[in-house]
């Protein structure tokens, strides 16, 4: 869908993007992660052709990015808003026409969307009469109305209550199933794990990590396990195949986190444990995206 190649963007006195390359495969929900000021917004603005890179290029479905692609991208920026004094319906029609839809087609589609989100009676309401969450819903409709192939969402859930966030999340999944590629930038790691199949992590103007979430998490495995057991406390004879990270006792259950010794397996751990205690649970701890994020951006 999107091939980003060696993008460099220099602002006076600071380099926002330094030789950033990444691939966003078609049909995915792709997470673009990074701390504040890492360069995410700069990259998104370049993809939207709001600004141009100093060097490097972007391919959109194999073609060099150009003005004709604008109508095939839908963008909901983090800093978003609507005209306060304008009626909602009219406003979305305007934004859709700027993306190339006809007046009649835009009107028809908005009516469908409003019905779907059960906000039919909003058409003539002014933005200033709506709550923040309601405005966000309208904004979402405006972003996807022209049925773009690529939808770029910057912090799409901010401003939504959990109920509405769920509604929008389901709409995003549905759009993705219908074939849209979604580039999704957020700080909420739980929604990244839930929605995204691949991610890229940008830190201090560089891409430091990208790929499928599963692969990334697996590559950060470090032989750490969680064990729950009941019975007397485990006694260590010095020959155990692991080192203890920490241990807790609560409600008749012992919880132990451990790191395997070099060459040892989980079976070795069980063999050591079973004669002494009754094991309720053994699980490998695979670092979450959140943990990887924290570790990588320290």
């Amino acid at each position, binding site marked *: 869908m999107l091939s980003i190649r060696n993008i460099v963007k220099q*602002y*006076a006195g600071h380099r926002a993007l330094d030789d950033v390359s990444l691939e966003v495969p078609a049909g995915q929900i792709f997470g673009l992660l990074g701390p504040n000021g890492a360069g995410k917004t700069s990259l998104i*603005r370049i993809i*939207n*052709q*709001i*600004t*141009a890179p*100093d060097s490097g290029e972007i391919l959109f479905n194999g073609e060099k990015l150009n003005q004709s692609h*604008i109508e095939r*991208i839908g*963008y*909901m*920026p983090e*800093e*978003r*808003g*609507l*005209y*306060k*004094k*304008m009626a909602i319906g009219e406003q979305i029609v*305007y*934004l859709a*026409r*700027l*993306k190339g839809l006809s007046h009649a087609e835009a009107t028809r589609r908005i009516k469908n969307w409003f019905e779907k989100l059960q906000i039919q009676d909003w058409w003539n309401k002014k933005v200033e009469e709506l709550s923040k969450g309601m405005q966000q819903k309208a*904004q979402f409709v*405006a972003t996807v109305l022209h049925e773009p192939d690529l939808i770029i969402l910057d912090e799409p859930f901010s401003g939504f209550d959990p109920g509405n966030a769920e509604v929008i999340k389901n709409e995003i999944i549905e759009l993705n199933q219908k074939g849209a590629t979604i580039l999704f930038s957020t700080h909420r790691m739980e929604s990244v794990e839930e929605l995204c199949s691949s991610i890229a992590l940008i830190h201090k103007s560089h891409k430091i990590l990208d790929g499928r979430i599963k692969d990334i998490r697996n590559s950060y495995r470090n032989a750490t396990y969680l064990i729950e057991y009941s019975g007397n406390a485990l006694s260590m004879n010095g020959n155990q195949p692991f080192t203890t990270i920490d241990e807790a006792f609560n409600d008749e259950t012992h919880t132990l986190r451990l790191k395997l010794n070099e060459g040892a397996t989980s079976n070795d751990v069980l063999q050591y444990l079973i004669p002494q205690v009754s094991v309720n649970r053994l699980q490998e701890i695979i670092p979450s995206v959140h943990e990887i994020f924290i570790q990588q951006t320290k």
Partner: protein
Amino acid sequence: MNKVLLIIQREYLSRVRKKAFLVTVFLVPVLLLAMYAVMYLIYKNSSELNAIRTVKVLDETGQFAGKMQNKPTIKFEDVNKPLAEARKDLKTHKDDILLYIPKDYESLKSIQLLSEKKPNITVSMAIERQLNDIATNNNMIARGIDTAKIKDVKSNISISAKEVTDSGDKESNVGALYGVGVAGAIIIYLSLFIYGAQVMRGVIEEKTNRIIEVIVSSVKPFQLMLGKIIGVALVSLTQFLAWIVLSVVVSYIANKYFNAPQSPMLGVFASLKGVPFGYIVSCFLFYFLTGFLLYSALFAAVGSAVDSESETQQFMFPITMPLLFTYLISVTFLAQNPDSTLAFWLSIIPFTAPVAMMVRLPFDPDPWQVGLSMGLMVIGFIFTVWVAARIYRVGILMYGKKASYSELVKWFFYKE
């Protein structure tokens, strides 16, 4: 291009549909109508004041009686009664005025004008002038001066200004030309400010609403800026057009219903007859439009550099200064010296030309000067729009950063 049209349409409709716009469109003709009505009332009232009044002259000296000359609104009558009785007569003839000249008026300085109703100032001044003339005449005769000779040497001069042109001498009413020029300059000055500020407010609104980034993901910042400027320009033209049409209608109505043959309005209209209105109105539109493009682009750049209207102060100063300066110079010095060197320079520099040239136009400056000024105007607005657009495209995406002048220069040199 299609997108620019969409933007123009939105900018135009969102402003024209506002109540405030309709109010201003109709307020001006209503004020004009009120002005006509007031003029009519004053005129009607003054015709009452102009009724003929009888002045009874009670002259104890004998020097003035019989010598007072009747005027269109004053009729003199000599009376030979004691003062007390003459005063009593005033009670019965309430419109009469009694002029009492006591015997020793010169030492007492006590000539009196007595009436039930207050005599108006024109009557009392006319009487005073006549009394002075007669007294002077009497004094001259008493000193043996030949009054007939004095009359002979008196002259009566009045100037009639004519302009020498190829098509013969033309009456030129300097006052009317001055009025038209200054009025044009004031209207341009005010409109540039009012509508320029509207553009700036529009830009700030889009920035504070955070809609700007949504819009520029669909259109180029330059298209948005241009659409906004043209949209607001059309709003102002709509307003001017509505004012002109409504004013003509109102004037027609006023002429029909407040028909006043000697109304002072006729005098104003008559003196405006020598002014080439078609030419001046077309030039007005040209200078307003190019001046508006020039200044509103700068206003847009200022709007893009700030986060709220209260921060605009520091950038507004250099924009408003040349306008304010030209305006003040124009209505004072230039209007009286439309052919001076200063007038020439101010009327060809694009930043000052819209105001300065309006003052000069009624005085018919050389066509080459007007042409030069217009050419520079076009170059000037293309240049400022270009500069402003380069600042604008960066400024609109900068949040929470307090811009300085050096910042603006940096923005200007940013690549796309």
